[in-house]
């Protein structure tokens, strides 16, 4: 492996960059097929209601309307909005919860469970006609009581929204060790309560599906999806169309972040295209996108720790309540994720997850998948413990951090061992870059308070509930160029480029001679999709294996062509070379040409490989923040943001940096400005970019990304995941910096100016910011044993 790398580890140009920078890249929303019809959804003006009747006659009579469909027209088949196959849908949900509560969604139903839920679909010749037709549909509703927050839905008199282990809730419990015993061994006990808000992905390309029906019965679907194969299966299961007649294509995709890991409107669009036997396009507006597509789970997190005098954490008791919205979707897995993404070697942990159903659209997958919430709570809580015990917060973290050779904390049913961990180097480099151990600089004016803080996170490289799986194909054309086919889509993060680099490096060709395609269910090989930060590690390993097989075939032909022993041959940079001295003996182009034209037994070099993950190596990150608070306005200005990430190996450092910078921006939005606000009827009040405030160029500070490479033995060239982790430490780092500035622990996201001003008021009232450690308050109840 210690061969010089020519492509991997280099800032090679992204394979899609020129098309995107010139406007040539074609997205799903750029598809305008000849004769294409436009579909629009009628949405419920009530958050919880039975549909007593729907009259579509007037709408159907409108010139240009081709179809109006309601729940009476669509197949009465339940499916899960998570998109997972049946056997994986339950996640960690107790077996007492019936499958019907998990496969809980119909294409259209006779009941609505959130404001804006689709009630009917219209297909018309153009958008204007479709919109007019929506107005002509008469729906009679029987309005029911609704509940929108966790507390409302758990109240005794709450309306019944969804079944679970009991009304409106699925309770799960994960236990490690003996927490009761752990707390007995502890000298101190600390307990805190945190809340987090909903966050919307706001992919810049809104959700769009275009389906084409062919007279043979074949359906082609173009969609803004992260999971083409799950969508193909879902179409087949719900509509009863054989998979052989369904082709799902993911064109260039305008962002994903988990939103498109869900089933969007793909199945309904295919149904409509089949219904009218014409191409149909269903694109949702920005308002629908922000208000109604899946969001990050709002949560309540109670965390209790038992700590020994020497700083060893001996027990965690964590309880989460997450607002799942009206449908189960990804909630079982997001709940589990909150339990596993803890990088500390705490022997006794009790985790209680409460998935709470409300009359909001469903919460689901969003970059970090539960990690931003749990990291925020845990890292603020641990910072508080360190400070109250008079410990250096970094040393306190490292003292309790999981070590290489120990059980991988992400393991649940597997015996995975942690084989790499660059956290120490992340701390060292991050602390140095921000000046953590230097005397603090004063605030820039008397009107400002200044503080520094950090937080740690750990995230997956692929799914961790079960071994992950991917497959890929590498072909060598007769001119020696490569085609890489992979079923997990590039959403914009750059996985096509990284996969191309892995293949180019292994086969030994130049990057400009590699083409990568993802994803088309008729041409790429089966894959779970693009999520769980799985591309670099799981997908990368599948590409690595396919490329190794292709290279082996290439070398056989090279041996035949040159008369040399195959064991003495290798490749590099477009050449077949002698293994012992690197001497060039033939170009790969000539060998590839030979393979199809002149070889004894001619063959097209083409290899497919599958990879079942042997581990789920965690990636690690520490974010440091230096910030100032304006005492008059409560405004937070981030002076410097340092993000140190252990990625194993940066296959493309520019792409890795870009992932870090982008997730820091989303983490800052989550921390400071992004919030989903609802009125008393469950209608979102801020479903547009004026009022739902994602960071803009002027809001973003300089982000210094530090890439740490502690090679992962099982990763392709040592690589681990990086896509999601960067969003998780940001809120905790900012909260801990606010504490240093004000002496107030911020426990409720987001840190709006109003909340920060309250902290400033407390600071002013108190005069001194450091609070003395009240040892008595934390002493473990010795008598209670």
């Amino acid at each position: 492996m210690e061969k010089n790398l020519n492509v991997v580890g280099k800032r090679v140009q992204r394979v899609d960059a020129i098309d995107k920078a010139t406007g040539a890249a074609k997205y799903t929303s750029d598809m305008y097929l000849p004769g294409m019809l436009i579909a629009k959804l009628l949405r419920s003006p009530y958050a919880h209601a039975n549909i007593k009747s729907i009259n579509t006659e007037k709408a159907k009579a409108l010139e240009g309307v081709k179809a109006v469909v309601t729940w009476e027209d669509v197949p009465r088949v339940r499916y899960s909005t998570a998109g997972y196959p049946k056997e994986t849908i339950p996640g960690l949900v107790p077996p007492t919860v019936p499958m019907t509560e998990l496969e809980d969604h119909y294409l259209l139903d006779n009941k609505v469970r959130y404001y804006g839920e689709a009630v009917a679909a219209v297909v018309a010749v153009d958008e204007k006609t479709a919109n007019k037709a929506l107005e002509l549909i008469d729906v009679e509703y029987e309005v029911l009581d609704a509940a929108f927050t966790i507390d409302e839905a758990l109240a005794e008199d709450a309306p019944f929204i969804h079944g679970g282990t009991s009304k409106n809730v699925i309770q799960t419990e994960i236990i490690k060790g003996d927490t009761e015993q752990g707390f007995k061994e502890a000298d101190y006990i600390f307990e805190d309560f945190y809340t987090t808000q909903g966050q919307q992905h706001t992919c810049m390309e809104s959700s769009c599906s275009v389906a084409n029906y062919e007279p043979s019965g074949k359906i082609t679907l173009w969609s803004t999806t992260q999971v083409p194969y799950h969508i193909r299966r879902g179409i087949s299961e719900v509509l009863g169309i054989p998979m052989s007649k369904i082709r799902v294509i993911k064109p260039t995709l305008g962002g994903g972040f988990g939103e498109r890991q869900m089933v969007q409107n793909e199945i309904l669009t295919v149904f409509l295209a089949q219904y009218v036997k014409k191409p149909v396009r269903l694109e949702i507006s920005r308002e629908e996108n922000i208000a109604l597509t899946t969001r990050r789970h709002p949560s309540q997190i109670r965390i209790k720790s038992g700590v020994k005098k020497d700083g060893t954490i001996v027990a965690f008791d964590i309880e989460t309540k997450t607002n799942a919205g009206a449908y189960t979707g990804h909630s079982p897995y997001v709940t589990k994720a909150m339990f596993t993404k803890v990088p500390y070697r705490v022997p006794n942990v009790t985790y209680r997850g409460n998935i709470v159903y409300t009359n909001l659209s469903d919460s689901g997958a969003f970059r970090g998948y539960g990690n931003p919430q749990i990291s925020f709570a845990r890292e603020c809580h641990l910072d508080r413990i360190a400070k109250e015990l008079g410990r250096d917060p970094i040393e306190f973290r490292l003292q309790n951090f999981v070590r290489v050779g120990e059980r991988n904390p992400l393991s649940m049913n597997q015996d995975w061992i942690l084989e790499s961990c660059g956290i120490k180097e992340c701390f060292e480099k991050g602390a140095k870059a921000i000046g953590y151990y230097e005397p603090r600089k004063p605030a820039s004016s008397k009107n400002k308070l200044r503080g520094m803080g950090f937080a740690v996170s750990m995230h997956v490289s692929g799914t961790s509930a079960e071994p992950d799986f991917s497959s890929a194909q590498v072909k060598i054309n007769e001119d020696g160029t490569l085609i890489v086919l992979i079923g997990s889509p590039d959403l914009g993060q750059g996985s096509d480029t990284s996969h191309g680099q892995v293949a180019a490096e292994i086969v030994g060709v130049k990057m400009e001679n590699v083409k990568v395609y993802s994803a088309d269910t008729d041409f790429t090989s089966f894959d779970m999709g693009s999520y769980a930060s799985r591309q670099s590690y799981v997908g990368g390993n599948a590409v690595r294996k396919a490329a190794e097989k292709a290279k082996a075939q290439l070398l056989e032909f090279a041996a035949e062509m040159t008369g040399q022993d195959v064991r003495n041959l290798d490749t590099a940079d477009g050449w077949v070379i002698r293994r012992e001295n690197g001497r060039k003996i033939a170009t790969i182009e000539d060998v590839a040409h030979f393979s199809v034209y002149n070889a004894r037994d001619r063959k097209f070099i083409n290899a497919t490989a599958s990879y079942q993950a042997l581990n789920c190596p965690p990636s690690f990150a520490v974010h440091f923040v230096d910030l100032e608070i304006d005492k008059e306005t409560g405004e937070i200005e981030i002076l410097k943001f340092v993000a140190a990430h252990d990625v194993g190996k940066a296959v493309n450092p520019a792409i890795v940096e870009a992932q870090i910078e982008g997730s820091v921006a989303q983490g800052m939005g989550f921390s400071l400005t992004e919030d989903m606000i609802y009125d008393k009827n469950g209608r979102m009040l801020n479903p547009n970019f004026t009022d739902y405030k994602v960071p803009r160029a002027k809001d973003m500070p300089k982000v210094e990304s530090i890439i740490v490479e502690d090679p992962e033995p099982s990763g392709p060239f040592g690589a681990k995941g990086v896509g999601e982790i960067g969003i998780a430490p940001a809120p905790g780092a900012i909260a801990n910096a606010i504490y240093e500035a004000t002496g107030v622990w911020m426990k409720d996201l987001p840190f709006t100016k109003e909340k920060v001003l309250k902290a400033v008021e407390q600071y002013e009232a108190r005069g001194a910011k450091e609070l003395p450690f009240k040892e008595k308050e934390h002493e473990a109840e010795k008598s209670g044993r």
Partner: protein
Amino acid sequence: MILMSQKYKVNFTVNGDQYERYVEAGETLASVLRVELGLTGTKVGCDRGDCGACTVIMNGKAVKSCIIPALKADGAEIQTIEGVADENGLHPIQQEFVELAAVQCGYCTPGLIMASKALLDENKNPTEEEVREAIGGNICRCTGYEKPVQAILKAAKKLNGECL
């Protein structure tokens, strides 16, 4: 009932080509560019002027084409992302976006490039603050703006170098 609206004749130049089209009163420039002319490089991210994905240059100024009525473009000279590269290849802003991996999903990229091109057409030597101001109306959800800002600043230097 048939939904018919009156159409009005407009003439405009897009990327150097003359067009004559009949449009309805409420039709936006973005829609005409994308659907009528097939210039789908101009993206629509919000359809209300919030996100800047639809930014084009009209008579020398960056405008959000999703809130410009097509009728207002009568007689205008319009440049879209498709008209930025020329026979010599990519524009320096495009080159730097490609070079620095300032492109991720790419949906906001045309808008960012048009907004920054309008800036550099007027101000050859902007500060970082001026660059961030110029793209302040453009939302990018992928990059955190770091690489796009660096790309625009580097392109400005390159453009200055060529002028010298």
